[in-house]
């Protein structure tokens, strides 16, 4: 790879595309960016304010409820309104002193319900301002969110220093006629008065107080709390007081929405990137670049670099903007670092997809698939940010936690970012295998392309290099053969990140299913691992990299199995964050489990998996050497052996 040429191609990619953008496109892009910038603060502000000014309230400034109503943008104050206005529907609520009147129609009733909520929030806020907190909130509740394990522990709620909660005291009977006091917890009373249908005292029921104190949070990775940042409820952060109704599950909705902002630009980015890669393949446009004295890695790197940097620039703007808005300070470095592998993963998947697509129509399908799949991969686990370590599968979880000012350990960071980073490397590597004249410009089947991509890194038996050209022919032959086997093992190892991500995704999707999830994860593990160990072996036989034969097949099985075994130890990373504490995590990432005693460790951690991988890889390789159908049968057999091993050895350990 030559950096100077790579950068020249990158600059060419930028200027070439910049020259093709007209003013109208620029204007549209500017409008989109402006809208993007506009929507973000609105999201931060709790939405776009669709309810603003929804209800009209007749109230005078002398009323004690005036500040309550005036401070809530849902209401529009109409001073001087009278019963005639209420009757005519000009106001939904009418205050007469300390009582409020409303009509028996949906909007008026809804306005009353909203008013009750507003009053309750107002009261809680007033109580929080009290110097004597114990008096204000005599009941203290310790909430501890427990990680979900195989047994599915239920959350523990401790009653700590329970006091007399502010019992409701304001239940007022509804009177016939004009006045109707609505009590707490009751629906607004209704009356059958002549003019208005009911009245109530919105303060009724607001008296219950619950003091939440103590540490809280699911303790991800040990020291991270729930850290809901006052987002999901007053009880979940520093504002630890309110009514029991305020206790909400640890769901970082707003942070998730904000984290999602990081993913949105990537979906646009891959459209442009996929197009530029495919355009090289349409009408043989890229042939002359391939014929020039630059490597394909220079070309791929040069064409990718502007999109990566562009993506990172966008993410930087988002990260800095969010931190300024949310925390009022510059920040977001961790978020940015966490998102970088995600950007590469999107680009890598798109690159590979564009190398497989045969037309822009197919590319559209590819990019939509990538958008859905990778957005799910990034977003779904992040939903569980405050639930368990399983959320760390996604780098977006780091962003959510960073937004919540939570500490992130290096182990957690590595665990979240290494798989997508390595996976993007696999995608780029496989795509690079296709970035050659023979594969770029033809219309071969997807299966053919997949096999080509897989077989790319495996050298031909008759190929020569500068080294082998100087050696004794027999030594050179041995060396070339050895290189082939090493390449097979190395390729197996390279596919590990992909295997790892699929397994993590399976864990994330299946862990909520209880006991059955363990079995399902083991099935997924057997399927994906056996495919990863054998598909390129099959491809190499199909491309005549090796002469079919039992000895060759067995040797390839050993090479692939050993390669897989060593690379699988990357699963040790999982232990850094304690994911195997989940039973399904332990089963899915069995390679990373270190049992206690040394002998058992050697037997179960080293020997047994090694034998398993070699045996099953050899089974598949023997089938692969004999043809497509035989490979299919052998692969199924290898999966069954693997599953049987999982169900006996792994289940025994787990």
């Amino acid at each position: 790879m030559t950096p100077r040429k790579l950068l020249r191609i990158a600059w060419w990619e930028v200027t070439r595309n910049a020259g093709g953008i007209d003013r109208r496109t620029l204007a549209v892009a500017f409008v989109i960016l402006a809208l993007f910038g506009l929507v973000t603060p609105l999201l931060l502000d709790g939405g776009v304010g669709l309810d603003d000014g929804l209800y009209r309230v007749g109230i005078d400034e002398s009323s004690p409820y005036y500040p309550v109503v005036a401070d809530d943008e849902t209401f529009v104050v109409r001073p001087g309104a009278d019963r005639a206005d209420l009757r005519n529907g000009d106001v939904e609520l009418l205050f007469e002193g300390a009582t409020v009147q409303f009509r028996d129609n949906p909007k008026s009733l809804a306005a009353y319900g909203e008013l009750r909520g507003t009053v309750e929030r107002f009261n809680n806020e007033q109580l929080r301002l009290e110097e004597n907190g114990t008096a204000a909130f005599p009941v203290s509740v310790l909430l501890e969110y427990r990680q979900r394990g195989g047994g599915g522990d239920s959350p523990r709620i401790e009653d700590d220093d329970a006091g007399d909660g502010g019992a409701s005291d304001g239940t007022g009977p509804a009177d016939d006629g004009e006045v109707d006091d609505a009590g707490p917890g009751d629906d607004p009373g209704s009356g059958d008065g002549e003019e208005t249908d009911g009245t109530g005292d919105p303060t009724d029921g607001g008296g219950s107080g619950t003091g939440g104190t103590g540490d809280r949070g699911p303790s991800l990775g040990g020291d991270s709390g729930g850290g809901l940042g006052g987002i999901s409820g007053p009880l979940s952060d520093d504002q630890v007081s309110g009514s029991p109704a305020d206790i909400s599950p640890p769901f970082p909705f707003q942070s998730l929405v904000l984290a999602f902002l990081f993913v949105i630009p990537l979906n646009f980015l891959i459209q442009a990137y996929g197009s530029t890669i495919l355009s090289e393949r349409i009408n043989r446009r890229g042939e002359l670049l391939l014929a020039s004295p630059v490597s394909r890695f220079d070309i791929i790197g040069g064409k990718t670099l502007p999109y990566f940097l562009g993506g990172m620039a966008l993410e930087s703007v988002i990260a800095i903007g969010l931190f300024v808005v949310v925390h009022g300070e510059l920040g977001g470095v961790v978020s940015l670092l966490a998102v970088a592998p995600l950007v590469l993963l999107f680009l890598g998947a798109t690159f590979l997809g564009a190398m497989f697509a045969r037309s822009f129509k197919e590319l559209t399908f590819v990019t939509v698939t990538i958008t859905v799949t990778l957005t799910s991969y990034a977003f779904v686990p992040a939903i569980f940010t405050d639930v368990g370590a399983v959320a760390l599968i996604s780098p977006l979880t780091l962003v959510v936690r960073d937004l919540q000012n939570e500490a992130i350990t290096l182990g957690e960071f590595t665990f979240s970012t290494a798989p997508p980073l390595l996976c993007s490397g696999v995608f780029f590597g496989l795509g690079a295998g296709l970035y050659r004249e023979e594969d770029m410009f033809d219309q071969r089947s997807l299966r053919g392309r997949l096999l080509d991509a897989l077989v790319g890194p495996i050298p031909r038996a008759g190929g020569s290099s500068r080294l082998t050209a100087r050696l004794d022919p027999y030594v050179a032959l041995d060396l070339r053969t050895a290189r082939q086997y090493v390449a097979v093992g190395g390729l197996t190892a390279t596919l590990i990140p992909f295997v790892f991500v699929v397994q993590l995704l399976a864990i994330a999707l299946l862990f909520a299913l209880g006991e059955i999830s363990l079995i399902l994860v083991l099935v997924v593990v057997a399927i994906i691992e056996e495919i990863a160990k054998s598909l390129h072996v099959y491809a190499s036989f199909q491309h005549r990299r090796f002469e079919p034969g039992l000895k060759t097949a067995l040797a390839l099985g050993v090479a692939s199995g050993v390669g897989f075994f060593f690379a699988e130890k990357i699963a040790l990373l999982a232990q850094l964050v304690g994911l195997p504490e989940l039973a399904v995590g332990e089963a899915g990432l069995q390679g990373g489990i270190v049992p206690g005693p040394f002998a058992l460790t050697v037997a179960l951690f080293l020997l047994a998996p090694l034998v398993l991988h070699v045996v099953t890889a050899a089974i598949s390789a023997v089938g692969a050497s004999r043809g497509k159908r035989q490979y299919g049968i052998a692969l199924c057999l290898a999966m069954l052996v693997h599953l049987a091993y999982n169900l006996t050895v792994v289940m025994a350990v787990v």
Partner: protein
Amino acid sequence: MIEAQNLRKEYGDFVAVDGSTFSVQDGEVFGIIGPNGAGKTTTLKMLAGLVEPTAGEATVAGYDANDREMRTHLGFLPEESPLYEEMTPLSYLSFFADLYDVPDGVADRRIHETLDELELEHRERQLGDMSKGMKRKVAIARSLINDPAVLIYDEPASGLDPLTTNYIIEFTEQLAREGKTVVFSAHNLFHVESICDRVVIMNEGESVARGDLDELQAEYGETTYHVYTTVEVPGSVRENGRYRRVVESMDAVERTREAARQAGGSVVDIRTEESSLEEVFLNVADSRKRRRGG
């Protein structure tokens, strides 16, 4: 300058090139001819390092064809060379000059000189707005940007009007006169015949004949003799007051001379006519077909 030894290329079960062997000397114009699907383009791409041979080896300018360094000495012009149409000729050529490590000053001079020679105007116009002939000239200019010792041109005049075609053929001849080694493939055998020193004829992936035009004509061509006599001899036809008999060997010429003498006349003129490359090519194809049929 170019050595190809048993080049073979397989695409699955299909053998595109099967054991192609030939060599090209310095400063030579070498033609590769053959019907569609004969393996000409695949052979050229193997020489250019674009396609990896399944077997066999090729060296170009002293380098293995798969060695990237070789490409700095090569100017390759594929049959189809769609350009980056949003670029101008100048920006396009400058870009490739950078990739070939041509110093800026040299590149600017070379670009303008080549475009002058190719008589290409509108150098700031986008390539997408240019005619096919103009685009081809830009593609040729690109193949010369690194002042290569070897040029591999695949159908350089394919699909162009006769005027542009002649221009490009003459330009290629001029490059050969300047000392460049040119490997040239074309369907139009007249072009090959007019500029190539030697040719290889390919058919169904195999190189079935090679040599200079004389050798090929001697081996696969037919020489006919038109013998003009003053008197009628068997097999002759009257033509402009004389009699013409067409024979295919010198023995037959002698027999005609004897026949004319016995009839009281004499031979007044003998003209020879040799097969064109096209006829040689058709003969080669026919003979292979007959051999396979037999």
